[in-house]
């Protein structure tokens, strides 16, 4: 089923610890994921399964992760290339893109998670 969410992006400790090592699998493990509370996540599949996040600005495949702290309908993707595939580029007249508060739809998927290199190659 399709889960409708409000998407936010931001820092995590593992994202930060691998930020200078973006070609590594550790960086992908740390950032190509989407956190939902167990109730929302349960509608999509088991933690660790692949999900596709779609917004008006793009779509990206990431790994499903549970986070008990998220309220219902709030999705979190760590900042980085996977999150930025779907954020709102509108700077709202002050230079800041919409990295938080993006309406998104999430589905389970069998598609694979792109490597950072492959993800950026889509833009060329």
């Amino acid at each position, binding site marked *: 089923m399709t889960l409708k969410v409000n998407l936010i992006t*931001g820092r995590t400790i593992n994202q*930060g610890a691998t930020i200078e090592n*973006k070609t590594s699998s550790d960086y992908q493990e740390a950032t190509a994921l989407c956190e939902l509370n167990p109730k929302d996540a349960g509608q999509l599949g088991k933690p660790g399964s692949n999900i596709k996040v779609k917004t008006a600005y793009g779509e990206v495949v990431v790994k499903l992760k549970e986070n008990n702290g998220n309220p219902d309908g709030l999705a979190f993707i760590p900042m980085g290339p996977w999150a*930025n595939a779907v954020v709102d580029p509108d700077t*709202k007249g002050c230079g800041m893109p919409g990295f938080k508060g993006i309406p998104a739809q999430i589905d389970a998927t069998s598609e694979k998670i792109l490597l*950072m290199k492959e993800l*950026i190659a889509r833009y060329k």
Partner: protein
Amino acid sequence: MTVITDALCPFCGCMCDDLTVIVENNKITEVKNACKLGVAKIMGHHRIKAPMMRTDKKGEFKEVSYDEAIEAAAQMLAKSKRPLLYGWASALCEVHKKGILLTEELGGIIDSTASVCHGPSVLGIHEKGIPTASLGQAKNRADVVVFWGCNPVHAHPRHMGHYSVFPKGFFIEKGRKSRKVIVVDVRKTETANMADEYVQVEQGTDYLVLSALRAILAGQAAVVPDAVGGVPKEALVKLVDTLKAARFGAVYFGMGLTQSTGRYKNIDNAISLITELNAFTKYVITPMRGHYNVAGIGQVMTWETGYATAVDFARGAPYYNPGETASNDVLGREEVDAAMIIAGDAGAHFPAKSVRHLAKIPVVQIDPYWNSSTEVANVVIPVAICGVEVEGTAYRMDNVSLRLRKMVEPEHPTDVEILEKITERVRKIKGD
């Protein structure tokens, strides 16, 4: 073996100053006292060995000499009508000075990672000023500590331990027990789990909640609805009472405010609340800056150009108008025709629309590591790591300037050396 004590950390805006770094044969073998972020940064890993170039961005890079790469970068930038020079936050102030000079020579735009971080805070501070204090003041005095829209456990792991919550202070005899910690956020983070009080607001309603708190503080609770941003009115009234009871309150805020609905108006409103609390007791507010020297590029740009971010030299004199001149404005409008990415990673941290434009235009990257910007670059120039292999000045998140030492000798040239050479070549090319 060399033991460097009281070393400074070049990762986040905390710039922790109590690290011990062990060096053997010019290699760092151990870092003590740092958090996971600091250890990863200082220990480092495999680097870009030599400068690289390619004409086709879908093609492979070819290793070239530093002279060839510098020449190509200078030609690319000198030919550009609207170059963007972005990043700077992971470099020292000495690098910023050279970067501003190069941008001025080019008539380009210089912008820092604040553009996607605390840029709105700069605008909010322009509107209202900022009642603030050093982290040391807050450590020694703050008995009420508020984290609003920030998660230091993840983003600034030693902030609470080194400065804001756990240490004993001159007037804070029992450390953590002498402080009340309040977290306001949209989800219950690990920071929220450590708080005495957690207020969960609906995402995008911070402005409303701040306005409600200001109304209650002004004695106008009657006009506040039963719930604001999902927070019951009683909880807001209780929060105002807690805030007012402080002897010294310290408020820290992050991207939860700068990137959510309202953007800079959230900061404006938060500063207004803090200003008004100062009618009752002492309050200060501090943005939780991300990169260790993102505050530094703001400082250097302010004293060199008059503005802290998004400065456009196209008119010959500095011009600044985020919304028009910030990186994602000019990339989103596909206005930029060449870019230099240095000490920041636009490829990873800009929205897809901006990265798509970077993929279309000539890009030179100056960085120690291969990252997402490398993927869209034509010329890549590897450099020494500021704060580890290069000494210099940086500004902590509270705008205290500190001197970082060299821990090991670099194998690569410094950012300053590269920028000086590019600038020299740009002057010659433009002069011809």
